[in-house]
């Protein structure tokens, strides 16, 4: 259980990155957790639990896309390639959540509010715009800017962290 608790952020983040909606992510996360629980007897203590858990999550995501009959998906080989790349990132993303907290703290208050509404309430851009009495276009552009700022900040923060670790 402690192994799972210590890695669930990364497992969920990995899944949430790969599916369209939080509800889909919730479902796959739950299915993944159940598989991990049932198959825990096959996990070898001392080996990489994160990699093992992400492998289970990876298979669940692939199944999800297989069952999703839509044109808006990557070709199977492309999807698997991306999933594997993302799994590598997630496997080594222990510091990303802390970096995200740091980057969120650095955002202006208005930007934080937009992000909070968008992700905390699961609101669409349209709904966020209604809440803030702004146009959807303005909120859309603001979200683009905020995402870009967060991506840049994450990259910089992780680089600094890496340098600090090497020093």
């Amino acid at each position, binding site marked *: 259980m402690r192994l799972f608790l210590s890695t669930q952020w990364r497992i969920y983040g990995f899944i949430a990155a790969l599916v369209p909606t*939080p509800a889909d992510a919730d479902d796959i996360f739950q299915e993944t957790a159940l598989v991990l629980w049932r198959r825990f007897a096959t996990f070898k203590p001392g080996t990489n639990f994160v990699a093992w858990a992400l492998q289970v999550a990876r298979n669940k995501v692939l199944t999800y896309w297989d069952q999703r009959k839509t044109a808006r998906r990557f070709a199977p080989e492309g999807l698997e390639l991306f999933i594997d790349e993302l799994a590598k990132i997630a496997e080594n993303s222990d510091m990303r*959540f802390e970096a995200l907290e740091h980057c969120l703290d650095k955002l202006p208050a208005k930007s934080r509010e937009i992000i909070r509404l968008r992700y905390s309430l699961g609101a669409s851009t349209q709904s966020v715009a209604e809440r803030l009495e702004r146009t959807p276009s303005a909120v859309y552009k603001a979200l683009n800017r905020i995402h870009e700022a967060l991506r840049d900040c994450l990259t910089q923060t992780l680089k600094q962290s890496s340098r600090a670790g090497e020093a």
Partner: protein
Amino acid sequence: MTDTFDPLDFSDLLGHLRDETLTDTQWAQLERLIRTDPTLRQRYLDEIMLRGLLRARFAVPGGAAVPNFSLPTPSTPATPSLPAAAPASARRRFWQLPRQRAAGQRIRVWEVVGSLAAVVILTCLLTSPIWLPRLRERPPSAATLLSASNAQWALWGPAPQVDALLPTGLLNLKSGIIDIQYANGTDLVIESPARFSVDSPNSVQLPLGKLSAQVPHSTAGFTVQTPTGTIRDLGTEFGVAVAADQSTYTEVFKGSVAVSAAQASAAPRIVHVAEAVETRPQTTEVRTVALRPQNFVRQVPRNGAVLAAGTPAYRRWQAYSARLRQDPALVAYYTFDKPARGRLDLLKNQATATAGQSDGRIDGATWDAGRFAGKPALHFNGVDSRVQVNIPAPLTNLTVAVWLYLDVKDHNMTAILNSDGWNRYGCLHFQFDDQGELRCDSYEAGDPNGLAHPHSTATGLPGRWEFIACAYDRKTGMIQAYRDGAPLYTEHVKWCNPLVIGAAEIGHWNPKGLMCPYPDRHLHGRIDELAVFSRVLGAAEIARMYAAGKPQ
């Protein structure tokens, strides 16, 4: 191609990806770009990883997985032990490491370990259960969790505790029902699945789920905010249901509320008792809608710990009920179990002999607390609620038994189980009069007024669960009434026709156009068990039924 691709356009593609508004053409373009351009590919990976991080950070992931993981299973091998959690001084944000290196010996230990093992240990420390609550630390809100019935939370940190203040921020109730109370006395019953947050002392945000609110008259202006509307209390009791598509259904049980659409500039719409409105995404309209059987739960018993396992009395009754439903003479048996899925307006007939027949249709009655902690009941509002049933079989003999709780007696007559109309031989009116007297009435030849036999003023008193039964023995021409397992009165009658309940209503009477001085017979109270037998239950059986089903 990618050499000339405008980065702004790529940002736009990522924006549409985030908003799920990518067209097929844009999707194909995005796919091609990230296949062929390593830089854009990395940006794409960073973007979707950021999306995952933000969802994990804000939208609490679901699944009962975490609670499941806490279940002990002897066959599971021991979990590899993790290193002991570092003291608080070591659990600080990693970008502060350079500054802390000079100050903290423990940090230095981690820094000098360059092996994979050290990375794993640091990973575990930063994401350990002890660390996580600190990351997600939230100040307490203004609302206390009063009770929880089978509640499971999808939270990274510890689950909210009964009798403690809820934390602020978004809370995800995956299953169960909870009752929370604000410092100002406002009481909310929230049903899963629900996402909500209590961030102010007089409001709640409800992105998803159902709640019923009771706001004291002394507290004005309590507000429910949903993605598509705002519901402001005007001294009332009301229910709000937010669907997955963010549409918001509001129904008023008592008093009135003011409802505004999210983007509307017009004055709020005032909604009165027994009215319902809806707000939907991308409209500014507050639309009147028909009352729907939303089955709002309006009360949760206070002892959540007991609810999880069921009280001994509840378990005793469940065992008895399981045997009872096998009785071949049971022609209809309603245990008032709330349907978990499917038709929420269905009141299932649990009698084995007539399974699939005589199911009831709930109209206006709402789910409420039953006589045992954790057992549901249907609440009849005394205005327009009922359950429609049809029990067509002709019955030589008959026993009807019910567990009910009267809120008030505010009508001349109060129906428990009444056949439609009153002009058909053998039809039944099992009801109270305005004095609280039980009437086991049946329409019979030669007696156009039926058989009305009020004999006791001790029944039908509001404010307590009562077990009421009437046994009709056509062979001996006797009606025996019971209250709480004891004989109440006996009446001798002469029957010529079999009893046929036929089309009937629980908690209401349909006069079917009949001119009658007392057409309004709405029940104002709760029923959580009703049984109809095609035989006469003797005094001993009635006493056993009462003993098995009494709340304490």
